[in-house]
């Protein structure tokens, strides 16, 4: 397992395609977090994020040839697959439950005032992101939250890098307006 962690994504995928479970495990553990968080931030639903993550990696298991290393990174490919599934689910079911305080968290402890204030601010931003139109939300999630490069984001979305830049600029402006209009977390907690 130790030497497998030194392999590139493409090499691991090649071994996994041949049935190497250890190689697949290393690859999965390397990539699942960003894919899960992308789906979670796009949908606000941990259940949907789980389903989308599974579907994205099932594509790698069933059709590994769909990933072409010459066209971009594996992360970008997985983001693209996850994006497709998220948008499909969002179209199908618009009654998603907003992310609650406890979603995805482990080992809750009673928060201090400072923690509460910070968490409320975080939730405020999360709600603002979720309220963005999908075309702007996806660039914010990919570039600002998942720290994907503009090139990877462009590949995942299927557009040019210039489009990603312009949409990101517009998305940040929209977010600024939403956060400006939202009640201040400090005042709410006071």
């Amino acid at each position, binding site marked *: 397992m130790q030497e497998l962690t030194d392999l590139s994504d493409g090499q691991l995928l090649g071994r996994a395609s041949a049935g190497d479970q250890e190689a697949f495990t290393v690859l999965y553990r390397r990539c699942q977090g960003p894919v*899960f968080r992308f789906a979670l931030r796009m949908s606000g639903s941990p259940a949907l994020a789980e389903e989308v993550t599974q579907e994205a990696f099932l594509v790698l298991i069933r059709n590994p040839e769909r990933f072409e290393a010459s066209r971009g990174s594996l992360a970008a490919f997985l983001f693209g697959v996850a994006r497709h599934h998220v948008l499909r689910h969002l179209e199908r079911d618009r009654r998603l439950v907003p992310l609650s305080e406890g979603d995805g968290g482990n080992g809750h402890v009673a928060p201090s005032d400072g923690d509460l204030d910070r968490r409320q601010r975080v939730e405020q931003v999360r709600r603002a992101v979720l309220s963005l139109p999908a075309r702007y939300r996806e660039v914010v999630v990919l570039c600002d939250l998942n720290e994907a490069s503009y090139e990877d984001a462009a590949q995942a979305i299927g557009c040019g890098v210039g489009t990603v830049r312009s949409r990101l600029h517009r998305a940040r402006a929209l977010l600024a307006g939403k956060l400006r209009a939202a009640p201040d977390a400090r005042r709410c907690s006071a």
Partner: protein
Amino acid sequence: MKPGESEIEAVVSRLRELAAADATKQAPPRVEAGLLRALSGRRSGRSLRYAWALAAAAVVLFIVSAAWVAQRRTPKKEVAAAPLVAPVARVEPGPVAVDPVKPRLKQANPRPAEEDALAGFIALVPGNPFGGEEASRLVRVKLPRSALVSFGLPVNGERVSERVDADVLLGEDGSPRAIRLVSTASFR
């Protein structure tokens, strides 16, 4: 109102705060377990497909081989059907000219091995049907059992509509000189 640079920077800063808050969130372990099961199932399914493909290839190879062997053992049918009883041609005695390409039977003075080959033939022409200078050809045809009567052979009335295999010795002009039933049991 169009946000200023500082406001955009504040937004980016808060987005980083959100990213840090979610940084540890991952898919639950059951997703990994399910995917590993899928990977394992796909591998076994692929092995099963390979096994089926191999078995199918073996069957096809066997059938092709069997057909090839059968084709080599069966004499080539040069004509689908020949006249059952052709007009009787006169046979001139003398040596037989041999065509090296087509299967021939030497007619004149057959040696013992050739006599075996010619055994069972019924002459359809007066005299020695195996003699003469002209070339001869041996062809295999299917005859209705009713035609056997014309050769003086007994025919089972219940099977009169069936067909039997027969070797027909043809003269150079294509007229039949002699006939031999391939299987003597076939006309019983």
